[in-house]
């Protein structure tokens, strides 16, 4: 396999983008990535677009073909990749394999979702189509429901409290304030979301025990990156950021079938594979972008990926280890919690953030001296997980 490098990245600000269509957003992010790489008129061999629900959210299909058309990238091969909220991660994985195999030299990967085109309950229902049709969906189960069921068990077994969850939200909102691309630019406090008499109004229950500020927002947005063989990096003006490793793993569709529902097996295996391929240990990672669609997931993923022992993630959070200046900064971008979570965009946005961090281009949220980054994109409720390790060379 050829070593694969990321030579261009681009994003657009996440949020509510009423003026832009899905393809508008994908195109703007792709152009930003192409300009970042300085590809000029060079032909792009293949395009992969991560998107979960354009058919349901936007009444549009064949999004990758539409993006090629919009950008005049003919006759590039084009595929839309759907893997729920991990669609972006899967799209990058496909792009990496295309370059690594020698089939393609220059590959554009974009991820995007336009979720705010529909009203909230409709968006909730569309996202809930990921649940099992007969065993979960018919009951009104949503992704927050699955998070609520999981959080109750995790709190009981791993000593996580509502304060720990709030602390994840507070940290990631603080980081998001430093990210011009973040959906949410608002500081929150423990008083405001948990401790004061107003907290119950500010931060209502969504799916007990998780509250509003334990959930990511519903966002529009897109992100993109350009991949090429590492030996071609010199042809572009960017530092070499290589995909040192990647991993993907699956688990049962329903939470109830897992022998231990608090064991995120797919997270464990995907992270292990990515780190092993990169020949690194969790302690070697300088910065991580984890899939905090719900605050509990940042803590649980940090443990299952091997950064902390199971049950020790909350303590690491308490000690400030996951802050931007800490031992292992997690979600300096603000994570899904503050950057936002346009489903298909998220896995790509995580990698974009890592590239900025490893290049030293992350501005006020820069993790000093970051050379190795880790991302984890969580599909379904942990039933399909994609992980990357990036390294500056």
């Amino acid at each position, binding site marked *: 396999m050829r070593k694969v490098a990321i030579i261009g990245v681009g994003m657009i600000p996440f949020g509510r983008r009423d003026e832009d269509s899905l393809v508008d957003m994908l195109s703007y992010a792709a152009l930003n990535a192409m300009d970042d790489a300085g590809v000029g008129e060079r032909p792009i061999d293949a395009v992969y677009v991560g998107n979960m629900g354009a058919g349901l959210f936007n009444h549009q299909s064949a999004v990758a073909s539409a993006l090629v058309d919009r950008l005049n990238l003919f006759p590039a091969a084009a595929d839309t990749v759907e893997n729920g909220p991990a669609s972006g991660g899967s799209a990058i994985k496909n792009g990496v394999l295309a370059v690594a195999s020698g089939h393609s030299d220059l590959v554009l990967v974009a991820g995007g979702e336009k979720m705010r085109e529909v009203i909230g309950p409709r968006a*909730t229902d569309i996202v809930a189509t990921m649940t099992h049709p007969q*065993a*979960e969906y*018919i*009951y009104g189960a949503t992704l927050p429901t699955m998070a*609520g069921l999981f959080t109750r068990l995790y709190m009981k077994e791993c000593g996580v409290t509502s304060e720990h969850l709030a602390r994840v939200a507070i940290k990631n909102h603080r980081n998001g304030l430093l990210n011009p691309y973040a959906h949410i630019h608002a500081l929150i406090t423990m008083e405001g979301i948990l401790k004061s008499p107003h907290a119950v109004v500010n931060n209502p229950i969504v*799916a007990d*025990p998780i509250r509003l500020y334990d959930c990511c927002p519903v966002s529009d947005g897109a992100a993109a990156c350009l991949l090429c063989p590492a030996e071609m990096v010199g042809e572009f003006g960017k530092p070499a950021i290589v995909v040192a490793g990647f991993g993907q793993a699956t688990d049962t569709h329903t939470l*109830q*079938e897992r022998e231990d529902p608090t064991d995120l097996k797919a997270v464990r295996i995907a992270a292990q594979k990515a780190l092993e391929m990169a020949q690194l240990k969790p302690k070697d990672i300088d910065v991580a972008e984890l899939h905090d669609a719900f605050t509990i997931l940042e803590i649980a993923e940090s443990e299952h990926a091997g950064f902390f022992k199971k049950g020790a993630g909350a303590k690491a959070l308490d000690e400030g280890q996951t802050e931007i200046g800490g031992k292992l900064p997690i979600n300096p971008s603000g994570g899904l919690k503050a950057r936002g979570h346009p489903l298909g965009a998220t896995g790509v946005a995580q990698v974009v953030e890592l590239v900025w961090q490893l290049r030293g281009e992350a501005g006020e949220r820069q993790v000093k001296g970051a050379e190795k980054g880790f991302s984890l994109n969580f599909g379904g409720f942990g039933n399909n997980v994609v992980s990357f390790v990036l390294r500056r060379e």
Partner: protein
Amino acid sequence: MSELVACKCTNCGFVNYPKHDRCLNCRAREFEEITPSGEATLITYSEVCTLPWGIDERCRMLGIVQFENKVKAMGRLRVDKPRLGMRLKPSWEPVRVIGGEEVLGLTLRRAK
């Protein structure tokens, strides 16, 4: 009760629900259909207050339970103050309207 049909692997005895065509435990392909038996024990639950399109309720309690014959399933809880490990009695009742059709599902109440 019951419209809920689980599949017990004839090779290893593992109870699969929902349906799989290869056993989750041993990958064998032969199953005996079984229904949940006895009372259920509450494994976890959540009161959901942001419900999806098509459910006109303020909040709804959902939980995961395990029956005496190892069938594990999600269901709707009709219980005031749930607690982990409590015993529940199952019934099969309307849980949602989908495409204009009433859909029946597992409903659980406190066992006496």
